[in-house]
């Protein structure tokens, strides 16, 4: 892990990984969405509205997975002070917020035909909305922490860890409490979903995750490049002042 404490080494690997991840991800996403729109059968009760599943579920997965990754990065930052951990967490926050919002929007569009309502304040929907707000707060907080100081702030990392308590709440909300949202269809080693839906969904989730990973790598490279440019400017200014 600490082999990557040297950003040059990380940048070399990131540069090689970005394009293959992006291409593979886009291809898998396209295959899953084409299958979802044209190949998959209509559902017994829901009919064609079930097709939004192929966007909704990967988006939900990445919204929750994104914050889990922020929590791991925050722990790494707090305990091991790894120089890339804070940068990774900052890079994850924006795509994580995007996919949480996408999950809420597609869920709302799906809720109208399936349940008869755009929105209800049940445990699952409310905790997912809280996740989006946590992302927005995290983005504001880490931006503020990086504007003053040298990007080594502990505060966003603590917030990233504390916010992680919402992740199990989202997952278990449909099991602990009566809710309008149904319990999970896919649990460890078991699926209540017909294979026509399941395999397309797994491909789509993998594809969306690869695109997410590629975007995070690109954003990490951008943040590192920004920091280098900043450091260079500062050095030049010092030299000019000395001369």
């Amino acid at each position, binding site marked *: 892990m600490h082999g990557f404490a040297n950003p040059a080494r990380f940048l070399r690997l990131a540069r090689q990984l970005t394009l293959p991840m992006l291409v593979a991800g886009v291809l898998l996403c396209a295959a899953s969405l084409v299958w979802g729109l044209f190949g998959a059968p209509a559902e*017994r009760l829901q009919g064609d509205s079930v097709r939004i599943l192929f966007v909704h579920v990967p988006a939900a997965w990445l919204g929750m997975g994104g914050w889990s990754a922020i929590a791991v990065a925050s722990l790494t930052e707090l305990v091991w002070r790894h120089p890339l951990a804070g940068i990774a967490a900052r890079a994850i926050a924006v795509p994580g917020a995007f996919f949480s919002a996408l999950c809420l929007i597609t869920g709302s569009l799906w809720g109208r*035909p399936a349940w008869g*309502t755009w929105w209800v304040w049940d445990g699952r929907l409310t905790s997912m909305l809280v996740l989006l707000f946590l992302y927005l707060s995290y983005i504001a907080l880490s931006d503020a922490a990086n504007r003053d100081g040298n990007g080594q702030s502990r505060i966003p990392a603590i917030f990233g860890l504390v916010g992680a308590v919402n992740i199990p709440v989202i997952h278990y909300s449909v099991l602990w409490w009566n809710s*309008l949202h149904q319990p999970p269809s896919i649990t460890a080693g078991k699926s*209540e979903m017909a294979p026509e839906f399941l395999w397309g969904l797994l491909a789509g989730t993998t594809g969306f995750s690869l695109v997410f990973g590629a975007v995070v790598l690109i954003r990490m490279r951008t943040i590192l490049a920004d920091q280098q440019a900043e450091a260079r400017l500062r050095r030049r200014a010092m030299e000019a002042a000395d001369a």
Partner: protein
Amino acid sequence: MNSAIKAKHQRLILVLVALAALIGAALMATWALRSQASFFYLPADMAADPPEPDRAVRLGGMVESGSIKRAADGVTIQFVVSDNKARIPVNFSGIAPDLFQENSGVVAEGKLRADGTFVADNLLAKHDEKYVPREMKDMTAAQARQTVAETR
């Protein structure tokens, strides 16, 4: 070097203790919320502890098989919501969602009258976690299993 390792372990222990406290607090909060965070009452809850007649509440459960009766006016329906422990008759006038049907989940928003009938002013459909293609719904269980096995 030695002191650096010590500092790292100190931070790790501090973070782990803080996390344990945080998880404990979150568990206590969710446990305390368990009745408030529920979206609806089950028929058994409602039968055991009926809400006041003028309080708006939600009742959720399965629409009992064969219980949907349509009134002559075309918009009023009557059905029974059950959780296999208690049954509560529901009256509703209006447009029911597409997925509202017998043997399927429903959440009714309305009030419980003193005579034990629930008067709903809105119905929400609650579907289960099973996703089954349309062509398979009319098959017998054995046929469906075979089809699933073939497509695998």
